[in-house]
């Protein structure tokens, strides 16, 4: 039989559950802080070495003053979670997103415009490398501040190079010289299977931006343009690798590649003689194949077009303040602290990256754990440094173009047909995006 005591107990249990649900994480966090400090929640994507480097910065900020306490929280799927939390009215105060999300998030009204804060703090355009500043802004507004950035260059395994390619000075400078290099260095076994590839353009960082190498783009005058003549030329060049090595041979070869961050990474295991990646890759060499003798060179430029020299793909980790953040002023205090030259250099050293700041100390460059950091730094300053296209359907473009190149590399469609198909679909996507998102 159920007694009145049981009734009361059940009522209490339900009330207690309700109360627990009502107690916000923020107030709990404040209690834990054991002081009157304002707690700034900071969501970040990193773990491992990168997280440790950022945590040192956070600790440094927390120790530098007594009013604010930044709480670092490592979050997987950070973009999706930030978006949903913003939608639910409970976003973090600071979100460590990638710069290629600036446009999509800004279009969705998910971000705080930081122009006012930046001007007050003196964090203006000339404080940053122009290409990175460009990544942080959209339609005249400033939506992000940088943390660690990257640029792409070629890592070369010296042990796999014939004498003529043993140094950065003698490594190919133009595409036609690079073609000769690919022929000389790539090796097949007697049964026709691949033993070593001199280079595979779709491996590593920046494998989706090849039209930019040849002076192309993915947009033209407010429309998507992935099948222009230059795009076609670029992807035909990429496809020439699969044709040269053989469709099935390339498939079989690539199926033996291990994870990026493992000793079985194709460059670290000696399957690829050269590999395009960012400055952070030297950390993986240090961890998984420390005996590899390597050097770094910028990517060669198209013959007869020296104006296209200095091509590199940009990448930028950022700090954004989502719309509706509870403590935007305090959040910006932390963001401003990270922008100090000595703090930024400490962070970028810890993450094996170059600095996004225009001014870089000689100490940073000379003591950096990546011995080729000067090349990455110079490339970031190149006018040919390209970042993600500034349209809100960048993820669709990456996915659709990636699929088109897959299809051509598998000989399912010609490069032209594959790109035309991608163009058709992306044009429709762009029209819908303009109607559904941009038309406010």
């Amino acid at each position: 039989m159920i007694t009145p005591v049981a009734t009361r107990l059940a009522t209490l249990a339900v009330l207690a559950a309700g109360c627990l649900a009502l107690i916000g994480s923020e107030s709990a966090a404040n209690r834990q802080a054991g002081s009157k400090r304002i707690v700034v929640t900071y969501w970040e994507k990193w773990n491992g070495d990168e997280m440790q480097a950022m945590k040192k910065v956070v600790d440094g900020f927390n120790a530098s003053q007594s009013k604010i306490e930044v709480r670092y929280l490592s979050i997987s799927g950070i973009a999706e979670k930030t978006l949903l939390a913003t939608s639910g009215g409970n976003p973090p105060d600071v979100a460590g997103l990638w710069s290629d999300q600036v446009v999509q998030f800004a279009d969705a009204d998910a971000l705080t415009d930081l122009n006012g804060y930046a001007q007050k703090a003196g964090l203006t355009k000339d404080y940053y490398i122009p290409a990175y500043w460009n990544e942080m802004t959209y339609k005249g507004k400033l939506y992000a501040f940088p943390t660690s950035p990257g640029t792409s260059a070629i890592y070369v395994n010296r042990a796999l190079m014939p004498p003529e390619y043993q140094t950065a000075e003698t490594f190919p400078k133009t595409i036609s010289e690079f073609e000769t290099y690919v022929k000389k260095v790539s090796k097949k076994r007697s049964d026709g299977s691949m033993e070593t590839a001199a280079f595979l353009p779709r491996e590593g960082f920046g494998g989706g931006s090849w039209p930019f190498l040849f002076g192309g783009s993915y947009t033209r005058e407010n429309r998507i343009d992935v099948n222009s003549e230059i795009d076609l030329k670029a992807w035909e060049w990429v496809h020439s690798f699969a044709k040269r090595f053989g469709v099935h041979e390339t498939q079989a070869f690539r199926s033996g590649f291990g994870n990026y961050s493992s000793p079985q990474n194709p460059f670290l295991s000696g399957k690829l003689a050269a590999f395009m990646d960012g400055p952070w890759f030297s950390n993986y060499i240090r961890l998984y194949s420390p005996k590899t003798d390597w050097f770094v060179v910028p990517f060669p430029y198209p013959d007869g077009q020296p104006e296209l020299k200095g091509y590199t793909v940009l990448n930028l980790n950022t700090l954004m303040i989502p719309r509706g953040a509870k403590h935007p002023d305090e959040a910006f205090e932390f963001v401003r602290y990270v922008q100090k030259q000595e703090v930024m250099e400490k962070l970028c050293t810890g993450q094996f990256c170059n600095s996004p700041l225009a001014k870089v100390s000689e100490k940073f460059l000379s003591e950096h754990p990546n011995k080729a950091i000067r090349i990455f730094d110079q490339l970031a300053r190149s006018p040919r440094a390209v970042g993600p296209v500034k349209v809100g359907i960048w993820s669709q473009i990456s996915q659709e173009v990636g699929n088109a190149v897959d299809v051509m590399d598998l000989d399912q469609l010609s490069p032209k047909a594959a790109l035309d198909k991608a163009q058709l679909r992306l044009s429709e996507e762009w029209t819908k995006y303009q109607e559904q998102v941009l038309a406010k």
Partner: protein
Amino acid sequence: MDEVSGAGPRQMNSRRDQRVGILFALPWILGFTIFLAYPLLSSLYYSFTNFSILRSPRWIGLSNYKELMSDEVFHLSLKNTLTFAAASVPLATICAILLAMLLNTKSKGMAFYRTIFYIPSLVPMVALGVLWLWIFNGHYGLLNEGLSRIGLPTPPWLTDPAWSKWTLVIISIWGTGNAMVIYLAGLQDVPQSLYEAADIDGARAWGKTRHVTIPMISPVILFNVVMGIIGSLQTFALPYVMFPGGQPARSAYFFSMYLYDTAFQFQRMGYASAMGWVMFGITLGLTLLALKLSAKHVHYEGG
């Protein structure tokens, strides 16, 4: 007093019991309403809207559903998912039944084997994906190493569109532990007297399996097949980890991956909701079909 109020002590007790019952059930009722019923009904509403998470949804009628009809990637992802389901459900069912029959024998150390065969279904999907990436690696993988030793061809499982879905079908057998346990319970429920009667009639092992075991566990088979259909149509974590973007050439791009990308990468919640409801319709249709087709072959005890 009781007579005046019209409510006897029995009635009062009954009402109080009812209130207490509801109070005890309230956590579940609240959970169901907030976390299941509300999102479910919301998604139905959103499927008729243009909704990009941070803006208010705008009613667009059947536009999302009409767009789905001409969406090539939607059709491809659906085809991939149905192909996977058609191959993995029968294969996993046969494997689970065979395993359960093996584990139903009275041999020494059977509890140990049952545990061993069940353990794989406890491994988280993402960890499993990483593990299988190694097993199917064309160069370092255990599978190709084994195949080459017995002189069989070693396909590039992860990079050839002809093999990518089959890779996932093979992996689906790994997770048969759950179904196996249910089959095992079903097998242990088959009355021994039926086997004894079959023995007297001179039935052999296959005859007993076909005419006694299978009919007696047919409701369990139906249950597992229906659950298998539902589960395989929702496959997400493994292909998402093993074949990012469904590569190569979207050969492993499953329906749930497209739905996830549409909702969270492309921020088209309305369109993704419509996809979800189409999948719900397909799952419901296939489940009803399975129930209808099996009506004559499923035997319920006492039914």
